[in-house]
């Protein structure tokens, strides 16, 4: 079977690293859409699933440096052979080209914000005062996080709120498709927010290949 990692536009060279199970990476192009794949005898076992998934991610990541646009394929997608791969690409060439257009020169950034810890009251307060203070604090946090989301969105070409695994109490969990030239601006905006809001935990990860921005509308 053939395990597909990604589709690439104008891929110069394959990464030197091997694919899953140590098999060499291979490429195959149909109408300007290059599929990057390797051959496997069997799908991942339960024991190797996590490591294989991480290895799949590493291959897609390496392709990001070598192509003008990359469409990551979800881990676990396989086709029977080259003919099936070609047929699958031929049926969707127009869709893939549009998708290349959408993600070209962009990376994905993931942002999570949650309340770091429950604040300690410094002086004894009545229950009503406490609840009032908590509610006010909660609404201030919401407003701050909404404003952060707007600021990062303004630097992005697209935003995905389609959630991943959420942290308990997560106030924001979003992915942004950001042009590479705006990466530093996005980092600065987030760092300034983190510095200004010590009661909030802010974790910004990436740059990722645009996994969250390649799915076709159902």
């Amino acid at each position, binding site marked *: *079977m053939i395990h*597909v990692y*990604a*589709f690439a536009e104008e891929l110069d060279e394959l990464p030197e690293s091997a694919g899953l199970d140590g098999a060499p990476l291979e490429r195959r192009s149909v109408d300007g859409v290059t599929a990057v794949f390797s051959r496997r005898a069997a*799908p*991942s076992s*339960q024991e190797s*699933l*996590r490591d294989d*998934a*991480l290895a*799949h*991610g590493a291959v*897609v990541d390496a392709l990001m440096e070598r192509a003008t646009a990359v*469409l*990551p*394929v*979800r*881990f*676990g*997608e*396989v*086709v029977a052979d080259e003919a099936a791969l070609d047929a*699958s690409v031929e049926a969707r060439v127009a869709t893939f080209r549009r*998708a290349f257009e959408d993600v070209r020169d962009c990376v*994905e950034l*993931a942002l*999570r914000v*949650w309340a*770091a*810890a429950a604040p300690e009251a410094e002086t004894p307060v009545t229950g009503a005062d406490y609840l009032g203070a908590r509610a006010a604090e909660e609404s201030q946090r919401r407003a701050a996080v909404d404003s952060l989301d707007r600021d990062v969105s303004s630097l992005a070409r697209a935003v995905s709120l389609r959630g*991943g*695994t*959420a*942290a*308990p*109490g*997560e106030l924001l969990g979003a992915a942004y498709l950001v042009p590479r030239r705006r990466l530093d601006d996005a980092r600065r905006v987030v760092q300034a927010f983190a510095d200004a809001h010590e009661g909030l*935990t802010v*974790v910004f*990860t*990436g740059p*990722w*290949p645009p*996994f*969250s921005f*390649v*799915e*076709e509308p159902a």
Partner: protein
Amino acid sequence: MSTVEAPSLREQVTLIDLVDRVLNKGVVLTGDLTLAVADVDLVYVGLRVLLASVATLEPGPEGAPAT
């Protein structure tokens, strides 16, 4: 996985974000997944536990857990 030094908050969330993307997002070619849903669920159970634990940590000055 080393237990000598706890991975930083950022490293842990990065792992979660990566697995979230690779297993759950991206181009769907055929829909004929070779993954057993139960196996994917197992990976996710681990992630949810990890995320629940990191969410309760307060990052120190360099993003490492404070305690």
